[in-house]
């Protein structure tokens, strides 16, 4: 006997359920797809990083052409003393390629926080609000897989704002340099830049998710992130000025990352006079606190107390 008000026949599933090690990727891809559907925020958040990337790529290209004396318009001509001099002048004005990339990465950091906050704040908060965790954890899914999936989603958006630009500019530099010299001679700098970008994205990914897991409203999570982030930044800088003590700057996440950046890439930034270990401790403790918060909150989602 068939039920009276529907006409479709139920079909049995004769396939098998497998252990899928990449369940977190499935979860991440779902979140990423939802993000791609919102075109306007994507345009607003990634337009400026995109412009920065294009401009920096152009300047890197110009730098190598200037060094080689083959600036556009002069290609095909024998480099004369005049063009060589112009090239040297232009080259010195543009600065070192590394400096250009360092500037890019520094300028991108704000956009990384913005885009990760925008896309990541709702990832757990919305699940809590809608109780979507019931759908996830009624399936063969652990909270670790769940967290990994959410982390991949938020890191994806962060990567677009900093890892991708760095990769693009380094690729342009490698292609534009004579005989790939930028890649062969500065590969360690490229790796360090990528490592720094990934560290930045990973740290902020965990922070965004931890804040998101504490509330069931996306807007609150977003507000909480920016309040925490900018209050510590402004507060630490203000206290450092008022108390004439650089130690206060350790309270700010960007300042600590700046210290790591300086150590990693052999730079010296003004106003950063503390040792690397202090910054690593601060960032490590913040990462641990965020991870502990995430573990506690996702356990509540997986198995209610």
């Amino acid at each position, binding site marked *: *006997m*068939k*039920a*009276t*008000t*529907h*006409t*479709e*026949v*139920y*079909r*049995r*599933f004769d*396939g*098998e*359920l*497998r*252990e*899928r090690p990449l*369940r977190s990727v*499935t*979860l991440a*891809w*779902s979140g990423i*797809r*939802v993000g791609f*559907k*919102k075109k306007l925020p994507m345009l607003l958040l990634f337009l400026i990083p995109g412009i920065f990337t294009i401009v920096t790529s152009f300047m890197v290209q110009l730098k190598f052409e200037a060094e080689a004396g083959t600036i556009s318009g002069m290609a095909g001509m024998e480099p004369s003393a005049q063009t060589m001099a112009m090239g040297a002048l232009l080259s010195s004005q543009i600065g070192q390629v590394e400096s250009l990339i360092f500037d890019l990465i520094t300028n991108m950091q704000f956009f990384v926080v913005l885009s990760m906050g925008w896309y990541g704040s709702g990832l757990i908060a*919305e*699940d809590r609000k*809608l*109780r*979507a*965790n*019931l*759908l*996830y*954890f*009624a*399936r*063969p*899914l*652990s909270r670790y897989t769940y967290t990994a999936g959410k982390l991949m989603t938020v890191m994806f958006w962060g990567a677009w704002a900093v890892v991708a630009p760095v990769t693009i500019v380094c690729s342009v530099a490698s292609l534009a340099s004579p005989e790939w010299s930028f890649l062969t001679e500065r590969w360690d700098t490229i790796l360090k830049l990528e490592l720094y970008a990934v560290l930045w994205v990973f740290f902020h990914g965990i922070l965004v998710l931890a804040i998101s897991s504490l509330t069931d409203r996306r807007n609150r999570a977003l507000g909480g992130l920016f309040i925490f982030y900018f209050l510590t930044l402004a507060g630490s800088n203000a206290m450092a000025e008022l108390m004439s003590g650089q130690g206060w700057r350790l309270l700010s996440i960007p300042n600590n990352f700046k210290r790591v950046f300086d150590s990693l890439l052999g730079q010296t930034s003004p106003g950063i006079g503390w040792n690397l270990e202090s910054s690593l401790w601060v960032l490590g403790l913040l990462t641990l606190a965020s991870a502990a918060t995430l573990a506690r909150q996702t356990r509540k989602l*997986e*198995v*209610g*107390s």
Partner: protein
Amino acid sequence: MTPNAPDGTPGSASTTEVAGEPEPIVRLQGLRKSFGNVHALRGLDMELPPGPVGLLGPNGAGKTTLIGLLLGLLEPTEGTAIVAGLQPTNRSARIEISKRVGYMPESDCLLPGMTAVEIVSALAKLTGLSRQDAITRSHEVLDYVELDEARYRTLDGYSTGMKQRLKLAQALVHDPEFLLLDEPTNGLDPAGRRHMLSLVEDLGRNQNKNVLLCSHLLPDVERTCDNVVVLVKGQAILQGSIAELTAAESRRLRVGTEGNASRLLTALEAASYDVSTDESGALIITLPQSVEDADEICGIAAREQVDLSSIDPVRSTLEEVFLKAVDDSEKKTETASV
């Protein structure tokens, strides 16, 4: 897939029949759950047979808490819950159970911004289906719940009925043997409710799914289920086959008369019968313990010169059974507190 023993470790527990008796799909032993001072479940001992079972109870009775415990989404304060031979005491057992159970939550848990196909196929992949199977299967279950072209639209424009059917589809996507449906007709208009009930009925009666239908709507359970459990204040106050619970009672009779019903009513009351009338004017008579059958009623009617047109045993509705059980439970509680 090797079923686990009741302690959650791999073992020999199974859902096979033992000595002709079907193995219960759910077995609860002294199950208690408290949230601080609030006692949501107060020591449940019961076995749910295979097939469609209704879990009835007023709001706050502990129905959703029980479902959470069966899925391992909540940890019991005390006691055990065994689902399809498995006890959700640890993550691996919970994960094993989730492969065999489909859950349709009560809450509006679907994430906006995704289409029905995307949601169902993503959840299918999370359950363990391959990419190809997930897509094929998603379309099959979406066909079954009759989400036609709407499956390619994002959820933002979905009606409540469509969302409920989508939730049912995701619960069915891995073809589980046991379905936990939490208030599937919540918020639906009459047409949507009829549609949902026809799906549940089909799954339970024709597709041989074990269904636990959690509802506070008695007609829903009466229509779709063979067995029922009534939960009130965290306790099972009634459990059994709906057919048996609502079976005609030999001592309650519906007596039709051809005029002079009031005279017969007065005479019966004088003879210590419990008598009332229904909406059609027929008499509903409960025979006293001293009376063996309806012959005495015929005798009284003859003495009063009232012609009888019919005498039928009265069949209780599930609502009457439910209300009586709730009343009895409240009386017991009052007596205990006094």
